[in-house]
């Protein structure tokens, strides 16, 4: 694992990294409270070992997988990605992880598997924020199969060479760098292959503001935030937001012919 972490991924950016302290104290993880500082204070109640991931739906290898078994065959590498929140702030995060495509191939999805659905753990005892119905628990997310198979799409296991902290979505989370942060679901407990498009949690909460795709797009305005600019955490001036968060070269073809304003 260490050896592969030292090679620089061609997908990594060389932009200045956001401080570890900021990454681990400024989080949106409503399962531990709706304030940005809440997750860092409250997430200690989450038990991440042992951890099981249920795989189900349209695949040949459904079942309940222990996390260690799930991680055994993969090689974890470092990927430095831009991370853009829908709220108009962004970070540069050195993730540790492996391509989601590796995991999907092992589960051998059938021809009916058009989408991948993800679910966060649902346990109000471990996640006190779930006692209040701010969102429809458990938190769910989804990707189209081609998005999930894209080499940029990562299963995150760590940050700055260390295991993920609970507030950042330990022990296993999604990282989709060309989409707004809420697509990158944390603390994944279930993965399902499905024929139909899942309705993600934020879409359920307010479908006029949050869509299924939620690709970073400076030209699709939000009723609460202008998306033309963003503030890099740690910097004073704002910078211009790029279409697909600057990953257009890798992902623009996924949306060829689609009206991105309608399919926001």
């Amino acid at each position, binding site marked *: 694992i260490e050896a592969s972490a030292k090679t620089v991924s061609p997908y990594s950016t060389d932009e200045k990294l956001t401080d570890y302290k900021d990454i681990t104290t*400024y989080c949106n993880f409503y399962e531990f409270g709706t304030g*940005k*500082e809440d997750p860092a204070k409250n997430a200690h109640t989450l038990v991440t070992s042992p951890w099981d991931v249920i795989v189900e739906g349209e695949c040949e290898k459904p079942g309940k997988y222990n996390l260690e078994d799930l991680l055994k065959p993969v090689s974890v590498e470092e990927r430095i990605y831009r991370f853009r929140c829908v709220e108009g*702030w962004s970070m540069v995060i050195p993730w540790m992880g492996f391509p989601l495509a590796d995991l999907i191939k092992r589960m051998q999805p059938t021809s009916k598997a058009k989408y991948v659905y993800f679910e966060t753990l649902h346990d109000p005892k471990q996640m006190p924020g779930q006692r209040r119905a701010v969102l429809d628990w458990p938190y769910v997310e989804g990707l189209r199969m081609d998005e999930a198979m894209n080499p940029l799409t990562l299963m995150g296991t760590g940050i700055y060479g260390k295991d993920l902290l609970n507030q950042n979505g330990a022990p296993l989370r999604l990282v989709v760098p060309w989409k707004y942060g809420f697509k990158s679901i944390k603390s994944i407990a279930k993965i399902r292959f499905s024929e139909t498009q899942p309705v993600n949690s934020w879409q359920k909460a307010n479908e006029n503001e949050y869509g299924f795709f939620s690709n970073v797009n400076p030209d699709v*305005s939000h009723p*609460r*935030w202008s998306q033309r600019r963003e*503030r890099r955490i*740690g910097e004073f*001036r704002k910078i211009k937001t790029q279409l697909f968060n600057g990953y257009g070269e890798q992902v623009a073809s996924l949306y060829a012919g689609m009206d991105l304003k309608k399919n926001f």
Partner: protein
Amino acid sequence: MKISENKFSRILRPSLFALLLLPAIYYAWGVWQDSLGANPLEAVIRGLGDWGLRVLLLTLAISPLRRLFNWPQLLRLRRMVGLYAYFYVVLHLFGYLWFDHFFDWEEIWFDILERPFITVGMVAVILLTPLAVTSTNGMIKRLGKKWKKLHMLIYPISMLGVLHFWWMVKLDITEPVIYAVILAILLGERLFNKFSK
């Protein structure tokens, strides 16, 4: 209730003045010491907005408290509290214009047009301005009866202020609901007081 003129002007009024300055000092200190978390500029804008709304509600609480404690002196604190509310609202606006938009007026104009919470916030601060301007003794005298009428604008302004916060919140509306309830009590007391006479 009444306290001596000496205590009122030498202790109560200056204490309240100092107390209401504390939030401004807290945020100035926080920026200086970089102790406001990962996104300090947002913390400053939000914090100043919170205090603008809180002090605005405090201004509206003075008449009901005066009636509750039968304490006429309280009314003489209202101008100071009201001007403090304006102080925080203007700082909040300035923070937004600077740290959110770096005075890019085209962006700001789009923001006002496209985002309802910005629209109502702007209307509120514009309406609040003539109240601050006419708060001097000279203006009170010059406007006479019209002054009271003009200053009744504080009722719609405070509603717009709460609405501004409510519409700004992404999902968890607990805080704006608390402000709305307090405002409803403060305005309801006035209605009750008016009609029970």
